[in-house]
């Protein structure tokens, strides 16, 4: 679901907010008929390990890890790292090593209640081996010394920013969890708007996390998404709400809602796996997002529903944030403004899981 950020990060280069471009809707024309990009079609089964790697023909792709960690003193924090790959279709036949065929962008954040707000950093580069790139065949995306890669039996994420840094190892507890129909994840009633999408829930986290000058040994649970597509955001959609939750019983819950400017859902879907059971795709009728308490950002004035009621497969669940202010305000650099933060999943007053909530498009329409 991180494509929004990819678009925003692109404008990092121009120094102009993504917002003005978004007004014209040119992106949605592209979405209807993405020239020169392969379409996402149903019925293509995911092939591992090849599909862990990059798919450079498709327009947009990302690897996205979120999680909760606890340090040696029992302090809980959230973290997030995303690597994007974007195919520009520029300079595809250029002999220059600088040819901007593929752009690699990365975004990392730490949610520490002691800070009161997110710490975040981003990077963007054209793919240029060995400085930045996204490998095919296995998971490996990197920009300089920031990296997310698979080695032997685990993932490793390394991020080093001014305010924070981490070097985390993620051990998968089971096979990848395909979303939608065997990995074909529809985003709108029109199946043109779809992606290939799988998740790796219940990743065991271990490693070190530095916040400002203090480094902690941490352990915890994380969630990885890998998604690629050529046409993503439906025309009417203004943004989306998304969750990825590691359930306490070892299960996993992914759900999202595409939303219009007036807040109506144009599409909802999800994936639920209970305990060690088999995953089930949730149809639009089985997923409903009901906004609860709102929080207004003192920086941007944008209002976000930071607490939610979820109707999932007939169960009534609630989302509670680790802290209210997990708005990511990068107007100074990329111009992107959205809410992305650590949340608890509560059922009948009891915590049944932890994960991340992403809310986009509450300020301006997104460009895809």
């Amino acid at each position, binding site marked *: 679901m991180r494509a929004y950020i990819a*678009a925003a990060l*692109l*404008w*990092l*280069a*121009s*120094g*102009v907010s993504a917002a003005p*471009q978004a007004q*014209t809707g*040119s*992106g949605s024309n592209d979405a209807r008929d993405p020239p020169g990009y392969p379409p996402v079609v149903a019925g293509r089964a995911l092939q591992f390990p090849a599909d862990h790697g990059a798919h450079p023909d498709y327009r947009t792709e990302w690897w996205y890890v979120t999680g909760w960690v606890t340090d040696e003193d029992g302090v809980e924090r959230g973290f997030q790292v995303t690597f994007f790959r974007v195919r*520009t*279709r*520029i*300079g595809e036949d*250029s*002999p*220059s*090593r*600088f*040819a*901007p065929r593929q*752009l690699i962008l990365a975004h990392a954040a730490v949610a520490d209640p002691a800070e009161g707000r997110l710490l975040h950093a981003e990077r*963007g*580069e*054209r793919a*240029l081996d*060995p*400085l930045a790139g996204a490998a095919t065949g296995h998971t490996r995306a990197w920009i*300089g010394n920031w990296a997310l890669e698979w080695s032997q039996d685990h993932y490793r994420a390394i991020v080093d920013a001014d305010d924070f840094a981490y070097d985390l190892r993620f051990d998968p507890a089971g096979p990848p969890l395909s979303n939608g129909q065997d990995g074909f994840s529809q985003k709108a009633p029109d199946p043109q708007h779809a992606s290939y999408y799988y998740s790796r829930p219940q990743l065991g986290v271990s490693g070190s996390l530095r916040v400002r000058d203090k480094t902690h040994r941490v352990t915890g649970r994380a969630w990885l998404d890998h998604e690629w597509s050529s046409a993503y955001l439906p025309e009417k959609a203004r943004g989306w709400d998304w969750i990825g939750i590691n359930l306490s019983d070892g299960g996993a819950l992914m759900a999202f809602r595409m939303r219009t400017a007036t807040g109506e859902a144009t599409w909802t879907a999800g994936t639920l796996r209970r305990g060690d059971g088999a995953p089930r795709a949730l149809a639009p009728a089985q997923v409903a997002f009901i906004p609860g308490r709102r929080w207004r950002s003192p920086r941007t004035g944008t209002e976000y529903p930071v607490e939610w009621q979820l109707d999932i497969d007939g169960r009534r669940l609630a989302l509670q944030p680790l802290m209210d202010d997990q708005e990511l305000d990068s107007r100074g650099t990329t111009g992107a403004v959205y809410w992305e933060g650590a949340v608890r999943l509560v059922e009948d007053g009891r915590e049944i899981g932890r994960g991340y909530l992403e809310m986009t498009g509450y300020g301006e329409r997104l*460009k895809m």
Partner: protein
Amino acid sequence: MNAGLRHVFLASLARRRLATALSLLAIALGVALGLAVQLIHGAALDEFGRGMRLVAGEADLQVMGPRTGFDDALYVVLAQRPEVADASPILEVEASLPQRDDILRVFGVDALRVRRVQPALMPVPEGEAGGEFGIFAADAVFLSPAAQAALALGEDTDVGTGGTLAVLAGPREEHLRILGSVPGAGRGQRLAVMDIAAAQQLFDQVGRITRIDLRLAQGVDRDAAIERLRPLLPAGVELLAPEAAASQVAGLSRAYRVNLTMLAAIALLTGGFLVFSTQLLSVVRRRQELAFLRALGLDRRTLLRGLLAEGAVLGLVGGLVGVALGYVLSGLAFSIVGADLGAGYFEGVEPGLRFEPLATAAYLVLGVAAGVGGAWLPAREASRVAPARALRAGDDVEVWRARPRWSAALASLGLALLLCLLPPLGGVPVFGYAAIALILVGSVLVLPAVVRLAMRCVGGVGSVGGGRSVLLRLAHARLAAAPGQVLVAGAGVVASVALAAAMAIMVSSFRTSVDDWLSDVLPADLYLRASSSGTSAFLTPEVIAGVAATPGVSSVQPVRYDTLRLDEAQFPVTLIARPVAEGAAVPLVEGDAESVRGADGLPPAWVSEAMADLFRVAVGDTLSLPLGGAPHRFRVAGVWRDYARQHGAVLVELADYRALTNDSRSNNVAIRVAPGVQAEAVAAALQAQFDGRNFELAAPGDIRSKTLAVFDRTFLVTYLMEAVAILIGLFGVSTSFAALATARRKEFGMLRHLGLTRRDIGRLLALEGALGAAVGVAVGLAAGGAVALVLVEVVNRQSFHWSMDIRVPLAALAAFAVALVLLAAVAARLSGYQAMRQAAVLAVREDF
């Protein structure tokens, strides 16, 4: 000093309005010229420095190579180093524009990296035309506001966003879409930005970049980083601190700047002389008045202070007027000749006029100093005179009996000679300028003695003839007895004539030498070049072959230019590769053009005088030149004269260059026409053959006249300053004679009693003026010759590293001298006009 006393002194300035006005004007002109030079170059340098900083951005270090760049693999290596936090690769191309003479600096940047290191170079898309990846598009270009403004001039095509920009890329003309601007570049920088991959491909530079700007990781010391990174660099590529790059450019124009500042200083000095003249005369005229004040009880110190205050007021008011005038002049210069005063040092920079408090204050202080300095000797003289004696009438000759100061004169001239032997300080010929100042001082000191000598000669002539010779006798007697009068009137003349003569000799020598040099370096019949300037255009071997095959062409000699970095402390030198042995002659001053390899097998190289000086190489030395990314040894076979590149140039055989670099391109080609064939016919054939290819064809005559036009424009400002100095010198003659004539009213009245007609008095004044000026001019010419020698052999040699053959423009100098003597005679006669009025006759009775 109380108000009454202040009135006694300052009112005196108001009483002698003409002299006061002229002194004011002289100081104002000196201050104005000096300040203007300072302001103009200050602004240009600031803008240039800003440009360098802007381009360097937040870089801690810059990796720079030759003009044609270096392998971009180095970027990949450096970007991965732990010492490096950020590396931003840049391909800078001086792009030629079709149908335009100027060039446009195009920066190929990685927009995702440039933001972190040189934010000012960020391309900013405007509108929708580019789509979301517009900044990466292969045909997209972003223009700085100054570039947009400059390109819009005289063009009908739209150069705003959405328009197109045509550039020359090799032999092709390419059209780029203007997708936005580079707002960070600011108003003064003419540049364009595009994607680095697009630029590499467009300008046929794939695999090459010209610069990498580095931001170092936190805690990494710059010197340590240089030490660790330098071994990774190929030959000819250097690691520089951004300040070093900026200071190299500043250094390049410094000599020219200092030269102009010196001229302004001399104008100011001449203004000081003028204050000296008028104050001395005023003190003489007020001898009795001042003695009377002393008799009334005014103490020596107060008198001295009062007279100095007169000078200070002159200096202050003159300085204020000068400051105002300086700003006006600078404004005019910016709009008319450009910031480099026509010298061509600051291309692509458009500075604006700013208020410079420090320079303004400094020149104001200099103006006051000139006023006080000029008033100092007369004030001291007046305060030392015994009142009783001064109260007696007449007897002003006492004041004018200047003693010759042989020892002081010889000492200063001798010291000047010694100073000429010293090397420059920081690239500026400080001692040369000191020598020039000493020559001027020495020549003024020697003036009384020369007056005596001259009067002895004139006396010999006068005693023979009868008739009108009475005027000659009177003038002679006056000047012989009162050489101080010549000193006062002539000191300014000496300084200004010396300056003007020196500049005239220097410029004439320079121009003749440049002219000769142009004949040497432009021996062919036609020149074909890829474009007037810039690195983006070049000639391929096919083009050269096409030229050679054109009917009527007997031979072709391609030339390739590049720049080489030999040393991180020096500006890069120009590399010229062309056939030497069978090609055009080299304007050698040392060595020979034999292209044979010595026993050591090293290929020959010929260095320019500047390079020989700057890099301390001599004929026979080995020289290591980084060609094609690796050092290669050459044997220095000769030193040649080069007026085009003051940072140095080295010439090698084209065949050697091609063998070492595999670069078969050329920038231009010299074409010799077969005997009996008209060059124009061949030119027409070439025009037809390369129609639409943006090549330029030039005959040596055109190049020569263009070059000389640039030369003349460069010296335009110096002519202006000379004229001002001369004007100030004539003011000196005029004011001193006006004041003297007033002081000598009784003398002239008595002579009228004895039967001199009014016209005779006028002639007497003219004669005295002419005689005094003649001596001043003669001494000035001699001093000017000496100063010219210092300028040619010391100042130019040390500032610009070039030699020239001395040519004295005898006819022009003679005409100038005669004109000046005549002007002085006229000035003296006009100024003495009131002495010829009837009322003066009655002055003989005004004793009580």
